[in-house]
């Protein structure tokens, strides 16, 4: 698996340098904007999609087929993408959450700090956890489409079932307990997604 990680790090550096520039740009920008949550959450969304991008490249180069001929199991191939996700999101969480969070704490904005952490954790865990099973089951193109349909259906169902505006849920995130809840919820969704992706990818004919 170390070899796969190394390959993806080379590929990220070659194909996704712009993401890193973008991330730093949003990070710096967040210091100058009053409501900076969007500017801090957006880089996390971008970074959490990097493993999906890497999987798309793998399929384009037929590396995924070649992996089947190497001493690797499909479970290892899937697990590496989830590990990559944790690495990237962990790095962003460290940069944005800790560095930017420390500034917020110094400024006495503890609620904003917890907000930031909750949002970063949820986006970091839940974003890739939702899309990766689709990608491993059907490939990047069909997987992305299935993911969009799924997200659309979930949003529609939420609005219909809750019968109230989504804005009311925005109170979540500003207390320390919310950070813990986000962490537990994110980790559970992430782990379930990881197991599901392994099962789906093992069944897929390449």
């Amino acid at each position: 698996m170390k070899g796969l990680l190394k390959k993806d790090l080379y590929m990220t550096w070659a194909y996704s340098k712009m993401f890193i520039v973008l991330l730093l740009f949003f990070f710096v920008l967040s210091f100058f904007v009053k409501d900076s949550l969007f500017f801090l959450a957006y880089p996390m969304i971008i970074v959490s999609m990097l493993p999906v991008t890497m999987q798309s490249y793998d399929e384009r180069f037929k590396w995924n087929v070649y992996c089947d001929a190497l001493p690797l199991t499909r479970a290892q191939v899937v697990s590496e993408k989830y590990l990559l996700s944790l690495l990237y999101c962990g790095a962003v969480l460290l940069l944005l959450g800790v560095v930017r969070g420390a500034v917020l704490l110094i400024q006495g904005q503890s609620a904003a700090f917890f907000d930031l952490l909750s949002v970063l954790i949820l986006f970091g865990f839940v974003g890739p956890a939702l899309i990766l099973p689709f990608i491993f089951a059907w490939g990047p193109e069909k997987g992305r489409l299935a993911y969009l349909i799924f997200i659309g259906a979930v949003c529609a169902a939420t609005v219909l079932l809750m019968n109230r505006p989504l804005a009311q849920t925005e109170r979540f995130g500003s207390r320390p307990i919310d950070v813990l809840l986000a962490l537990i919820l994110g980790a559970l969704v992430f782990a379930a997604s990881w197991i599901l992706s392994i099962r789906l990818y093992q069944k897929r004919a390449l």
Partner: protein
Amino acid sequence: MNAFEIKGLKKCYPGFELNLDLALPQGCILGLIGENGAGKTTAIKLLLGMSRPDAGSVEVLGHPVDDSFAPVREEIGVVLDEPAFPDCLTAAQVGGVMRDIFRSWDADEYARLLEKLALPADKKFKDYSRGMKMKLSIAVALSHGAKLLILDEPTSGLDPVVRDEVVELFSEFTRDEGRSVLISSHIVSDLEKLCDYVAFLHKGELLLCREKDALLADYGLVLCTKEQLESLPVTAVSKVSESLFGVTALIRRDQAPEELSVIPVGLEDLFVTMIKGVEK
């Protein structure tokens, strides 16, 4: 011991069915010959556990090809019909990645092969020619102490000089008696130079699998007229093809009349006549 053994294997796709019984004795080179779509790649995927058979069993290097097969691939060097490295990686980076995938990766051997095959280590894969890409795949397959090489069309798209270099590398590989090679190709001349055994695959069925020299010694070609063909014993004539210049008959030498002038047959003619020829 056999390097691999395929028994009663069956794999069905819409419009295609592969039925195969095949074995490769250890230390030998087996050439799998077949036209496009004959089932060569399907057979190779089943051997590597990349695909599951509908029936039958496959054993490679003494291990059944099942869910626990992945570690056995440590001992198998593979070249697929299309080199599949990421475009942005250099040969040096490919080596670095493979070092962490294969426990027995031999970095010195890889460096030696890159030099021998004139592959620049710092050039990106996307900037390699088709021949260089294939040579890089071959260098990887030969750099982790494999006992079995499985090569799917490794010489296709290569110029004659590169093909000759590559064929020489495979010959070199089997100088160690414990090593075996399965090579599929429709460039029959390469296989003729290299193989101990040949297997003909046609529309998913195995036409024959024989020792190459014995096969070439057993068969011959006779160029004659239709009238002359009629005078030949039915048991001696395997297949017949007609052209503007007369009839070409594939003859079993042991059953042909002694006075008959029989031309030695090459693998390519043998294969083509077997596929395209008709029974007498």
